[in-house]
């Protein structure tokens, strides 16, 4: 029907517009830039550019003693600082065969889970912002404030703490935390129901998130995704359950697992994890074992020669520390495995082919923090 020399429409040379979602962009979760080739509203290809927040933490680690390096670990995933500290301290303790006393383990679980709630509340606010609603951010930060007050009384800091030390915890948990948390436990479920009303049930929100950025199990394994991104696609994998650390096997809590792996499921998984973390902290506070809060640790920490890899369930996914020690004060080599690094690696695979608005929402659903991605 066509003559040979007639040019078919899609043979015409197409040059796409290269839009630069630059390091300074409202919804790239920190200093992260991706160059998107777009054809009208659809994104053809995404080229992520990272390294703007690269501080060379792994090189610094080789010139610091184990105690000196610990405050730097908070600066990795600054929204879930205590989880990083816990993972680092567990790694060093595994090297030196130190076991934290039960009270310290319980206090550490309380810190880690409260920090997870705070990080998920930031995610809730950011996800609202990505889809265009400004109010969830304020609601989320409003409740995060009570958790930060608890941290201020217990650990001293609000975002970065240096509270969990090698062998236990820096100071004992004050009784005021109990009263603060009881008040929080009474008020928070009411507010959480209010979030469900405000945004989770909202038809526009559901239309924006359902069946967007669907990721299957096999691809996620291959790309090395972890945490809520993995559980959103139906993988029953939570490191607190699979390799329990710091006494997690003592608490009974459930793991939310999504069904069809789209952005909405990842959102629901994280909102459900807030409820589960509340249960854990409540159980931990109820039967808090007595006893001292730190083990006997030599003043200068010199772990024996060897290498160890310990991983924890951080707020964004699997956080791991691979420490090679040659027996002297400084670690010989320290590799930090962070979830955001693998998730942004997957961005092109997950987000290209969608609209610009969807790509932004998919990036938001990975909940990446540039501190932990660039190290």
């Amino acid at each position, binding site marked *: 029907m066509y003559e040979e020399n007639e040019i078919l429409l899609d043979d015409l040379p197409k040059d796409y517009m290269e839009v630069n979602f630059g390091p300074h962009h409202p919804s790239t979760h920190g200093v992260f830039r991706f160059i998107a080739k777009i054809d009208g509203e659809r994104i053809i290809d995404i080229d992520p550019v990272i390294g703007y927040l690269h501080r060379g933490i792994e090189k610094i680690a080789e010139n610091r003693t184990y105690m000196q*390096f610990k*405050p730097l670990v908070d600066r990795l995933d600054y929204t879930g600082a205590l989880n990083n500290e816990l993972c680092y301290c567990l790694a060093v303790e595994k090297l030196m065969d130190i076991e934290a006393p039960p009270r310290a383990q319980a206090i550490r679980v309380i810190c880690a889970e409260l920090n997870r709630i705070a990080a998920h509340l930031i995610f809730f606010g950011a996800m609202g912002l990505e889809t265009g609603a400004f109010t969830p951010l304020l609601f989320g930060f409003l409740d995060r404030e009570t958790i930060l007050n608890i941290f201020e009384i217990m650990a*001293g800091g609000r975002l970065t703490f240096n509270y969990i030390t090698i062998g236990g915890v*820096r*100071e004992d948990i004050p009784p005021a935390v109990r009263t603060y948390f009881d008040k929080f436990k009474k008020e928070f479920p009411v507010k959480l129901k209010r979030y469900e009303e405000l945004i989770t049930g*909202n038809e526009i929100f559901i239309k924006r998130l359902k069946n967007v950025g669907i990721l299957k199990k096999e691809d996620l394994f291959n790309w090395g995704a972890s945490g809520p991104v993995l559980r959103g696609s139906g993988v029953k994998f939570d490191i607190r359950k699979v390799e329990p650390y710091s006494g997690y096997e003592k608490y009974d809590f459930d793991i939310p697992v999504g069904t069809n792996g789209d952005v909405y499921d990842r959102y629901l998984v994280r909102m459900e994890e807030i409820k589960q973390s509340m249960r854990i902290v409540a159980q931990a506070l109820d039967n808090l074992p007595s006893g001292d809060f730190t083990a006997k640790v030599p003043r200068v920490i010199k772990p024996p020669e060897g290498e160890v890899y310990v991983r924890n369930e951080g707020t964004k996914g699997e956080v791991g520390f691979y420490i090679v020690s040659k027996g002297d004060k400084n670690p010989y080599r320290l590799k930090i495995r962070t979830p955001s690094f693998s998730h942004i690696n997957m961005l092109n695979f997950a987000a290209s082919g969608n609209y610009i608005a969807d790509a932004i929402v998919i990036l938001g659903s990975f909940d990446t923090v540039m501190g932990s991605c660039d190290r």
Partner: protein
Amino acid sequence: MLGTGLLKGLKTTLRAFFSRPVTIMYPYERAEIGNRGQGLIKLRVTSIDPIIYKCTGCGICEKNCPQRCIEVIKKEGEKQPEIYTVNYGLCMFCRICIDVCPFNALEMTQDSEHIGYGRQDFIWEKEKLAMKSIYIIEEKAPSAGDAGEAGS
């Protein structure tokens, strides 16, 4: 029905509209900071008029500070450090110096309101470290009109 999610969302914001706002007016009202708050580090002093510091200038805190922001210089035979500066531009308030000090001559206060116009404003000498921070400004309470509203 299709619109219920939207209507529930509207109900939430309306309830927020008629409930009390939670923001505090920062320079006039202040949220109280827990007693373990990470504020500026202070040198402990045993007596005031001939200022005698508990610190003996041994320099352990200088060696242990991850950010190398403490500088201690002491002449031999002296009991007190001749120069003791803390560079708050670099300090990350990790309290390692307080832990390792054998004479517990350092303590952490809760005052974190310090402003400076240049990098040199953040390098504090001995004398400034010993005094209570002079930068907490006692602001006058908001005008009557606001106060009434703030109370509601």
